[in-house]
């Protein structure tokens, strides 16, 4: 019952397939272990996803499926006005969202992890505090920050004015130039604890012998970080990047809560998740066929790019070792 044995990673040099048994149990036993998860996952997750693919080739009237229409739904996505303008715009906003999140949220996460790794006091306190917003629903976070950033009544502008930064007091969510960056910041506020915890875990896994060796060689702490820790964090960076990518291309709640269903102002915060939502639930009679087609394109893109990213990071790791 002791937990201590659960941390065998440190000290022991890792050997591939260290604990993995060679003689697999008979297939009935394997099946008994795997089948429950397999069935649940396949029926309730994979099957509906496949259905989306199938539905995308049909015409819909409300929820009633009509005839086979080939690629017409896909064609409509790129030709029907204003969808043909909104779709590419939303796509680039997602790209922007991803880059912004990588630069701000994940860099901050890494910085905090590094600072906390070095500090002896208050580590748990800061880790807990920085992760707190993650526990709050995106809707609530969006609502809260909409109030904070409100141009008429919000405290952020009041505080800026009070400390003499009048020029910075602006309608953050009402100006197309600042609305998306503001949402990216709020999203980072909510999520920064996640990369921080993962990077903390990664740093804790780097053996101290390496650090000591570097220290004896006279490396500064920046050099230690740049040449020892950062390369060894590559697998974590890979995981964080892929998870951020998936999360950002699916982003919905926070944008919906702060920019509304149309990604206001003037579509400046419109993202693919909102386009899908509008197409499926605000569109005309044939909405579900179109929405399925859009869902299929998003599946393919998100899945495909994630796989490429994973392969790229694995490749980089192999080059390093």
């Amino acid at each position: 019952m002791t937990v201590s044995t659960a941390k065998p990673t440190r000290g022991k040099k890792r050997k591939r397939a260290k604990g993995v048994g060679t003689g697999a149990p008979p297939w009935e036993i394997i099946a008994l272990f795997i089948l429950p998860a397999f069935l649940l996952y396949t029926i309730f997750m994979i099957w509906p996803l496949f259905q989306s693919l199938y539905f995308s080739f049909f015409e819909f009237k409300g929820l009633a499926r009509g005839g086979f229409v080939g690629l017409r739904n896909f064609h409509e996505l790129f030709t029907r006005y204003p969808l043909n303008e909104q779709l590419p715009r939303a796509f680039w906003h997602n790209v922007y969202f991803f880059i912004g999140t990588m630069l701000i949220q994940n860099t901050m996460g890494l910085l905090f992890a590094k600072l906390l790794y070095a500090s002896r006091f208050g580590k748990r306190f800061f880790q807990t505090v920085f992760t707190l917003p993650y526990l709050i629903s995106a809707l609530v976070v969006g609502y809260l920050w909409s109030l904070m950033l409100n141009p008429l009544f919000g405290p952020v502008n009041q505080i800026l004015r009070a400390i003499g930064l009048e020029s910075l007091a602006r309608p953050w969510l009402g100006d197309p130039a600042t609305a998306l960056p503001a949402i990216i910041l709020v999203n980072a506020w909510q999520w920064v604890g996640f990369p921080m915890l993962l990077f903390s875990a990664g740093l804790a896994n780097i053996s101290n012998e390496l650090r000591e060796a570097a220290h004896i060689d006279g490396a500064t702490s920046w050099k230690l970080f740049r040449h020892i820790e950062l390369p060894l964090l590559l697998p974590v960076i890979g995981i964080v990047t892929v998870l951020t990518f998936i999360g950002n291309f699916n982003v919905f709640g926070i944008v919906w809560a702060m920019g509304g269903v149309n990604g206001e102002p003037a579509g400046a915060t419109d993202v693919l998740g909102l386009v899908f939502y509008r197409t499926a639930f605000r569109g005309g009679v044939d909405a579900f066929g179109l929405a399925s087609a859009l869902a299929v394109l998003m599946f393919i893109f998100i899945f495909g790019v994630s796989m490429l990213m994973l392969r790229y990071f694995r490749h980089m790791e192999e080059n390093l070792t």
Partner: protein
Amino acid sequence: MKSTLFKLTLFLLLIVMLAGCAQKPADTQAPAQKPAATQAPAQEKPTEAPKEMATEAPKAEEMAPVTLTVWSWRTEDEDAYNEIFDVYEQAHPNVTVEFVPFVATDYNNILATGLTGEGGPDVVQLRAYGGLQPLVEAGQLLPLDGKVKTLSNFSPDLLKGAMGVKDGHIYGVPFGIQTLAAYYNKGIFEKLGLSEPTTWDEFINVLETLKKEGYIPIAAPAKDTWMLPIIHDTVGAPRYGGPEFEKKILAGETDFTDPNYVASIQLVKDLQPYMPDNVVGVSYQDARTLFLTERAGLFLGGSFEVGYWRNEGPELDIGIFRVPPAPDSVLDHPLTPGWMDGSYGVNANSDAKEEAIKLVEWMGTKEFGQMFTEKIKQLSPVPGTEPKDPVLAQFAKFYEETPASYMLLVDFRYGDPSGTTLMGNGIQKMLLGEMTAEEVAQSLQEGISQWFKPKQ
């Protein structure tokens, strides 16, 4: 101490069973509904229904209790509706009406799937005009013509809002009318010596005075795009010609790029100096708060706001006026754009169709209409109902005198993209300086023409 797995599975089973048990209370209601269901075969012929209803009416009193679930997007009206349905329940002891409101922004998404499967509603609040069509085409609503006698209380024009465009059947009993005008703060007007403007010059003068005195003249929200076509029609309907233009565009004799229509859009831009700074950052709720806290003199909006002003600012003294026609207007008098707000229909999948039909039939009576207008503070379309609220009564009077259609909603929501969406997005961009009035009109025309075919 056996094994953790064992304990875990046991606990899990327990939880799943608990989930199953917790289900029970709801399930026990189902048998109660069954008798009604068996007596209402799904494919009855519409014309026979009233007869059946009549013969079965006495039996219904002895029938097992029925619970009718009513879905709505009016979370703020929950208490009022419960009071109204209490009256119905007293007259129909076997019926319990459960009113379930959903948040308005998600109502469409809930309805899209909501009418299929278990536990759906019996009676549904339906969006009007185009918003109704997906449900009709999916066959999820019961046609009510020939079954609901009170439908004859309503004019054909009103019933258009509850009609399936393809089959011409009526699918709902209208519950409300909305009309548009300009609200003003009487206290502020008095203090500044202002009166209701009757010409455009007087209107501009009012705005100038308010601005000079440090008020925000018009509490306009431009963050929520759905308000922008409303502001446009409140200000610009006489400029483009209202009903005359509507007739022409439906007949294909003109389109939205008509110079008069473009000029009506430009009016919104011309009024921007009188709106709050950074108007595109001001949400609907912010704008209402500005008017409520007496920081703004005017609010361009609809009769649907009356309830909100009364609840949140009971001490606020408000009046309304029609925005006078702008120079070069096609019409020489102001207009009051209005529309049928929605209707109550019956789920084709309901277990208790007959009782549901009786309920919506009652919703077309004067008894319901009068309670609706008094308790919910909106206009009832039932003839003979009289709003008690003076402002609401004023709206009704305006609409009677100078009626017009809120055209983008009434006629241009039958396809995707809808007229209101295009106009909202367009005006927002115009206020940001990204589009001109011509471009807004063009984008509206381009979007609409993808599905709109004028009748010859």
